[in-house]
């Protein structure tokens, strides 16, 4: 029974061993030349400006409301649209209520200035 798994075990051990071996080889043989560019947060990207723990505008929650109103809605709309013929009136009215609640979110965002980007 255990013999059947022997190739698998050998492969696991070998794979692990090779990975550890190469890690140590790189540590041992590799050259280590630190330059300013290599030490930055994004080696070949932008220079970071300021700290990542800054406060950001609370308007961010408006983006979240937009996401739910325009994006999550679709997740429910597609399966509903495919099945609405078979599910009948109950499904229709359920979706109407759901859409009304979403519209409430839309109007809330509109009135709170969520679409005015400055």
């Amino acid at each position: 029974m255990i013999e059947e798994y022997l190739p698998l075990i050998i492969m696991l051990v070998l794979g692990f061993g090779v990975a550890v071996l190469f890690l140590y080889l790189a540590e041992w043989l590799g050259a280590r030349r630190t330059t300013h560019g290599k030490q930055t947060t994004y080696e070949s990207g932008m220079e970071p400006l300021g700290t990542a723990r800054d406060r950001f505008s609370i308007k961010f929650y408006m983006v979240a409301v937009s996401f739910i109103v325009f994006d999550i809605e679709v997740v429910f709309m597609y399966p509903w649209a495919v099945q609405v013929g078979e599910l009948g009136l109950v499904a229709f009215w359920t979706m109407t209520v759901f859409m009304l609640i979403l519209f409430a979110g839309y109007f809330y965002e509109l009135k709170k200035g969520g679409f005015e980007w400055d």
Partner: protein
Amino acid sequence: MMQELIYALPLTLIFILSIAVIMVDAFTGKNKTVAYYFSIAGLLGVIIAAIYTMTLPSADLAKMAYEGTISKGMLTYGGYAAFFDILFAVAGILTIVAAKPYLTREYGEYKEFYSLIIFAISGMMTIAHASNMVTIFIGIEIMSITFYVLAGFIRTRITSVEAALKYFLLGSFASGFLLYGMAMVYGATGTLQLQEISAKIATGEIVNIYLQIGLALLIIGLSFKVAAFPFHQWAPDVYTGSPTVVTGFMSTAGKAAALVAFIVIAKSLLPTNFGATLINDKLIVVKEFTENATMIIALISAATMLIGNITAIAQKNVKRMLAYSSVAHAGYLMMGIVANNENGFAGIVFYSTAYMLMQIGAFVVVGVLERDDTKFQQISDYSGLRKSHPYLAAVMALFMFSLAGIPPMAGFPGKYLLFTATIQSGYTWLTIVAVVSSIISMWFYIGLVLNMYFKEKEGDALVADVKSSHFTIAVSVIGVIILGILPSFLIDLAKNFF
């Protein structure tokens, strides 16, 4: 079908109201009074609808329990559900009225507060109406997520934000326990419908390790939500850090909602009246299972009251003292679950009503006197209150006497009901522990009263900013006295529910 719509009226109204308040908030711009009066009027409407559904004959309820209903048996109407609707809506009105002057003074009145309170109430009412595990979970989550936001409502205050973060991290962890417990119970019984679970457990065939693990996880999750030992550690910090009016709301209505969930789950998972057709050895299995689980709840309850009351003695801050006493009261209320009979559940209904009135009243008095988060909250600050504010000192003393359970106030009949129900079901030792911890609690309740009445204040007297909080305090005082003198009407009402 039409009949069900009438029964579901309070629930439908509160959900429509919660969306409508957001709309009113968005469309009225800088005008704050409209949202304030609209939420109060809406909650009054919910109360009227709930009173109406409570008067409807309950005979029809059994007929529409399952198929042929819109909710497919996931909701229950009338009876205790309608009563708790009223309780939560009253708590909401009391909180909103008291919150207006408090928030204006401490932080600024934001209309979102009113919609958040109403969202929380809609969650609680969902719990009260639940007859399915999933409905309970949805209700608890609506309520908890709103509470996390409400706890951190004053976002410029470090204590408030700390309270919100602590509550959120621990609360979501506890929700995980609750959900895992429900999954385990589903795995054992194959259904989430509480009546079906109850029927299957009574047959004795599915009492196995999975059901036991599931029940244990459910007890952990619910103990957290009612702040019972050993899952009470979040309560003092959260209750102290949150805005005082919010603390009053979530330590009463929130606790009552979690207890309803506890009642509903305990009633169906721990059957006490077995069918006559049961074979004997199966009966023994079910009986053992019920007794073990009840013993665990009894131990949690006993430890909760002792720890809550003993720790409260050491507190110097009134808000923190009330937070620990709230932990202790969770212990008293859980005695009703231990009793697991109609008297016990009626005791929970009565005591959570009385507790709501006295605790909201006490927190509102603290909120009226405190300034800038932590100022004037010490017990020593309250000395000489009799001279500077005789009215506030008198009502605070009344709430303290009621919390301690001294006869003419509502706390006494509530405790009496719970204690007798526990003796009835054979847990006399738990009642003795409860009496002892009640005596311990006298120390700090009466201590505050002594401080207010018999000590002189050095330095300036406290400034009270009461305004519309008068209404909340007056309603609480009247309620506490009426329930204390004439408890029988509510007791009779509550006994019919279960």
